């Protein structure tokens, strides 16, 4: 029957167009897996080099001069991980959108970037303020919390799974702020392991 098929096709077409024009679907699961690996390597380096498993870390009882050099290295390490992870995500998204015949920088991408950027930039500034006050122990919880909020905030404009990943990061962030001194383990679990798990899941679901 010609007409009924056409109606169903019309509805499918409407749905797909609405989704394509609002959602950023060029994110590759591989980006998540790689970001997770970078984070785990970074957490390991940080643990070996700087980590003091001590509740006093929050109150900065150590000489300020001594700790500021370590913190400087920690910031460089964190920035390196961030640049690698974001760079990988942009590169793989570019490849995926090329394959799908779409431009990467469209209105859907812009929405994702803006909705991510507001909580992330807020979190970044907040963390810099924490560091300047010597509250190093809150670095891991704060980064998990703001990253989680950014993901939840962005999830309506991309794959729906991102929302649950965001909630996981928020819960980890709260736990890390309670069990202060173990922040790096929660951080490695959230940014490392969870990215890998979600990356594999999304790669299998959407790219196989």
């Amino acid at each position: 029957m010609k007409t009924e098929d056409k109606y169903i096709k019309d509805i499918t077409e409407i749905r797909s167009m609405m989704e394509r024009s609002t959602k950023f679907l060029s994110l590759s699961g591989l980006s998540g897996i790689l970001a997770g690996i970078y984070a785990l390597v970074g957490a390991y380096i940080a643990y070996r080099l700087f980590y003091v498993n001590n509740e006093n870390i929050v109150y900065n009882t150590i000489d300020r001069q001594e700790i500021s050099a370590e913190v400087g290295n920690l910031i460089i390490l964190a920035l390196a991980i961030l640049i690698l992870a974001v760079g990988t995500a942009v590169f793989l998204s570019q490849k995926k959108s090329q394959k799908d015949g779409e431009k990467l920088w469209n209105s859907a991408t812009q929405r994702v970037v803006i909705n991510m950027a507001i909580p992330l930039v807020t979190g970044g500034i907040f963390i810099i303020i924490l560091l300047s006050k010597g509250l190093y122990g809150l670095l891991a919880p704060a980064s998990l919390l703001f990253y989680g909020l950014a993901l939840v905030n962005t999830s309506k404009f991309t794959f729906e799974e991102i929302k649950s990943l965001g909630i996981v990061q928020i819960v980890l962030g709260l736990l890390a702020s309670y069990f202060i001194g173990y922040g790096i383990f929660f951080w490695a679990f959230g940014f490392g392991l969870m990215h890998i798990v979600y990356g594999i899941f999304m790669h299998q679901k959407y790219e196989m």
Partner: protein
Amino acid sequence: MKVIIDGLRKAFESRVRLGIMSALAVNDTLEFTALKEYLDVTDGNLASHIKALEKEEFIGVKKSFVNRKPNTRYFMTKQGKKAFEEHIMALEKLINSHK
């Protein structure tokens, strides 16, 4: 525009026009180039469909300058929104009645 059968609108019969309306239903405004990319059609083809929808007053045009370059954005009018919603409802009804 007359209602043709069961609330379906002739103006939305074409795939391109249906696509334009769907994209504008979920975006406040869209540029010509963005629509072109989503629909994968030629400039001329898209322009003629846009003109037809404009004539029905289902979509409107906002012209402005961004960095001194002309920028044309399209949006859905209230009338267009109503017509599009009715069209979707009619489609759903027709599909359900065939079951």
